[in-house]
């Protein structure tokens, strides 16, 4: 499972950045997301996927890394719910 496409759509919706520009390798900071925008984007991801991002996720720089982090949390989510 990869959340990449959904994240591209969310970032387009929220910040108006064309999904074609948002390759997995692209630096989110270089695309114009400063630290405040990134924090708000993580909050939006939590809302959209009903997950809790980890504090260290705010240091992520590329969309690929972010998608991987979201994938890990979404894969774990059902397990942690029953634990």
């Amino acid at each position, binding site marked *: 499972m990869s959340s990449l496409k959904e994240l591209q759509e969310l970032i387009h919706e929220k*910040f108006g950045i064309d999904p074609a520009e948002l390759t997995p390798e692209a630096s989110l900071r270089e695309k114009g997301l400063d630290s405040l925008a990134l924090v708000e984007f993580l909050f939006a991801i939590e809302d959209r996927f009903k997950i809790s991002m980890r504090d260290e996720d705010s240091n992520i720089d590329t969309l690929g890394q972010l998608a991987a982090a979201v994938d890990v949390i979404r894969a774990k989510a059902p397990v942690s719910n029953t634990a």
Partner: protein
Amino acid sequence: MNQAVAITGLGVVSPHGDDPQAMFAALLRGESALQPIFPELPKPAAAATAAFDVARWFTKLQLPGVDRVSQLAVAAADLAMRDAGEQGDLDRERIGIYSGCGMGGAAALEAAYRGGGRVPPLTIPAFMPNAPAAHIAMRQGVLGPVLTYSVACASSAVAIAEAAAAIQRGDIDLAIAGGSEALIVPGVVLAWQAMQTLAAFEPGEAARAVRPFASARSGFALGEGSAFIVLESAERARRRGARVHAQLAGWGISSDATHLTKPDAPGQARALRAALRRADLQPRDVGYCNAHGTATRIGDVVERDALAQVWGGDFDALRVSSTKALHGHLLGAAGALEAVITVLALQRGELPPNMSGGEIDPACAMNLVLEPGTAAPALRAAISNSFAFGGTNAVLLFTRA
């Protein structure tokens, strides 16, 4: 006598639009921007909101953590700077921002309270009352003093006075001064209703709910918006060939020190006298007063009494109107918006009406501007009053350029 300070730029995002001349024309016609809001609230409420196209001023990437109160401020300040024209050689460390704000980012706080425990991470930077000034500084590249004045309904009048004082002292060469307020959210409207200061009205009568100085007055309606002016020394304005809208010739700031919310005529009179003294003018020199005029039972009478005390035998010659019947009470932005209206009245020689919608209270008897489209070609000086909860009174005195 201190040298007058030149006003070379005007910018508004107001309930009557973002073009100062068109706004003034609508006010001159007596057009009310008040309308019903939040029908879900138990008690009917009216307010004047500002139409605002955020996309003209911000990309989506610039918007995280920027509350509406800051968005309006950035737009109004930018419009004022554009109106002021080419600045030439200007040291950015010698530009200052003097911004009034009563509450801060009300929409951000409301969203935090109503989020069901999910609080947006940028609530604090969005809400803080100095955010509007900070956002203007970033947009305009201002490196000098960037200051916020929170003095309730006098916030932005105080901010303008402080800016003019900084220019006279030579601290800065140019000031962007004014205020912003955007608190038309259900929680804040409920709080003002609980305070028993908002106008009551019959269904369909929201536009005429606010009746300053009338026998039938019952309080004000909230308004939102932002207004900024550009101030510089008269000498600098002359040197760069700037168009001068009017001059800020004097100002007076006083404190009642009597009661947190009840106005006080002697306190207001002290501010009025201080403004006249600083401008080296006599009451008879001033032809128009844009009144604080919130249409409360007590406030209107106290303001009339303060004016009568100071103007004495010349009181009949002073034309007075409160424009809050038309644009609502912008609280922290009220002083700045009404300063712009007063400057335009001087510049155009026309007086906006006091739409009282009925008989004037005998206790408020004065020379009110009751007819839309009143000309005043001989007008040379005018004042704008802003009297705050907390007891701070601010009076700005403008003279024709």
